[in-house]
């Protein structure tokens, strides 16, 4: 049995001072239901992806708030898996559909992150790690460790890291919902402020507000994109317990599950939305997903093999880096964006990859036309 994506909507991502968490969620839900040609009362249950509304907004009862957007108050379940909350909520919805509990559900991911100070935001986001934050780490520092290990083991260069940011900002120019519509050069990225060696400001994804929603159904609908495979795996929360700093084993395991279920091979993937919270994260992802040979992702990106003229288009939306990263919304946005691309005929096979923390949680989905 396959899951059909009947409708989607992604709000604009960015620093949206005029829109509240409720405004964003309501817009995503209303438009996704409308795009599905359904009535709101056709939605049997809602799965809500969010990392930290309690901390960012003081909202501790988000599932009830979202259910309130519907006239019939459907059952609503909140799912949290740090930055992988969106992918995990889609996965949870799929389990409920395949169990036969529901036939048509909606998944919404939403996060409002810019109402707090940067210090508060840093503190809230650090909750996705474990003990490291007490010992001086930050998320850029953790990914800085991974970047330095990849550079040492595979000779990945500063210019190659920068090429990820340049590419994704270029892709975002064509995505109206993206937070940034500004192109950068390799020199600008490589010359931006150091945050945690070797990562610089333009290696990092931004703080964002935004929401995305998808309507999923087991009812067959002609022309609707399908989710044909998925995988989910975990690794240790802290980096020090890992056997390798140059791969995410959770991503590798989740990808293998998804490929096996969908009977798709990595070389068949035409579009991939991968979790590029930092430039090094995209390089790790395309290798762990089998899209690019291990150790060669930096050279492949610099050689433009992961853009529209290449072998696979990675982060056509602009990714987290340039489209934005409203944490709970990101995984849902990936699915929504890819479904829209498949509907327009841009590709036949697409992959979404959503990561929580520093690779402790990974969720992979395969979508087909």
């Amino acid at each position, binding site marked *: 049995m396959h899951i059909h994506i009947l409708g989607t909507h992604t709000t604009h991502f960015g620093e949206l001072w005029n829109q509240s968490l409720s405004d964003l969620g309501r817009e995503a839900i209303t438009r996704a239901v409308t795009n599905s040609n359904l009535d709101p009362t056709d939605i049997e249950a809602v799965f809500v992806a969010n990392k930290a509304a309690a901390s960012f907004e003081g909202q501790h009862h988000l599932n009830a708030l979202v259910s309130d957007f519907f006239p019939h108050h459907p059952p609503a379940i909140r799912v949290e898996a740090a930055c992988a909350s969106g992918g995990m909520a889609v996965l949870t919805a799929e389990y409920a559909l395949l169990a036969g509990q529901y036939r048509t559900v909606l998944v919404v991911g939403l996060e409002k992150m810019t109402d707090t100070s940067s*210090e508060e935001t*840093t*503190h809230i986001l*650090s909750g996705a790690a474990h*003990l*490291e*934050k*007490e*010992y*001086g*780490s*930050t998320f*850029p*520092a953790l990914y*800085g*460790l*991974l*970047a*330095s*290990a990849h550079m*040492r083991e595979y000779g990945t260069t500063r210019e190659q890291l920068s090429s990820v940011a340049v590419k994704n900002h270029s892709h975002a120019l064509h995505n109206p919902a993206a937070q940034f519509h500004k192109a950068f050069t390799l020199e600008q990225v490589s010359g931006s*402020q*150091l*945050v*945690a*060696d*070797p*990562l610089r400001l333009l290696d990092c994804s931004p703080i964002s507000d935004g929401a995305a929603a998808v309507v999923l159904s087991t009812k067959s609908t002609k022309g609707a994109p399908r989710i044909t495979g998925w995988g989910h795996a975990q690794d240790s929360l*802290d*980096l*020090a*317990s890992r056997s390798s*700093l140059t791969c995410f084993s959770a991503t590798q395991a989740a990808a293998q599950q998804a490929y096996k279920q969908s009977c798709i091979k990595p070389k068949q993937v035409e579009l991939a939305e991968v979790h590029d919270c930092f430039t090094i994260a995209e390089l790790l992802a395309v290798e762990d997903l089998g899209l690019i040979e291990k150790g060669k992702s930096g050279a492949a990106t610099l050689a433009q093999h992961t853009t529209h003229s290449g072998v696979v288009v990675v982060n056509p939306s602009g990714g987290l880096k340039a489209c934005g990263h409203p944490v709970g919304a990101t995984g849902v946005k990936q699915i929504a964006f890819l479904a829209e691309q498949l509907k327009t005929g841009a590709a036949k096979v697409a992959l979404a990859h959503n990561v929580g923390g520093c690779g402790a949680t990974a969720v992979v989905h395969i979508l087909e036309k």
Partner: protein
Amino acid sequence: MRSPMYKRYNQHWAQLLQKTGVVTAVTTVRVAAPELSHLTPYSYLIVKTGDSQIECMGAAQETFVIGDLVRFVLRKMGETPDSEPLAYGVKATKV
């Protein structure tokens, strides 16, 4: 941090102090959490010691490269209000 949490997080100090290890990954943090911003730039390391690895901060102003031999020492971690425990923790210093 609340006192019971602080005690739980740091109850293995004694086992680490004066042990040595080898740096397996290193970064220099330039932008830190507010309570640690006065220490920037500081090194953040993964150190292999025996069969395990730990993550820790490098001692003040020291720079490290992968392969450096280090020893774990007790150092002040950051500033805390009077109502909270003194923020001491394990850092690494070059042997």
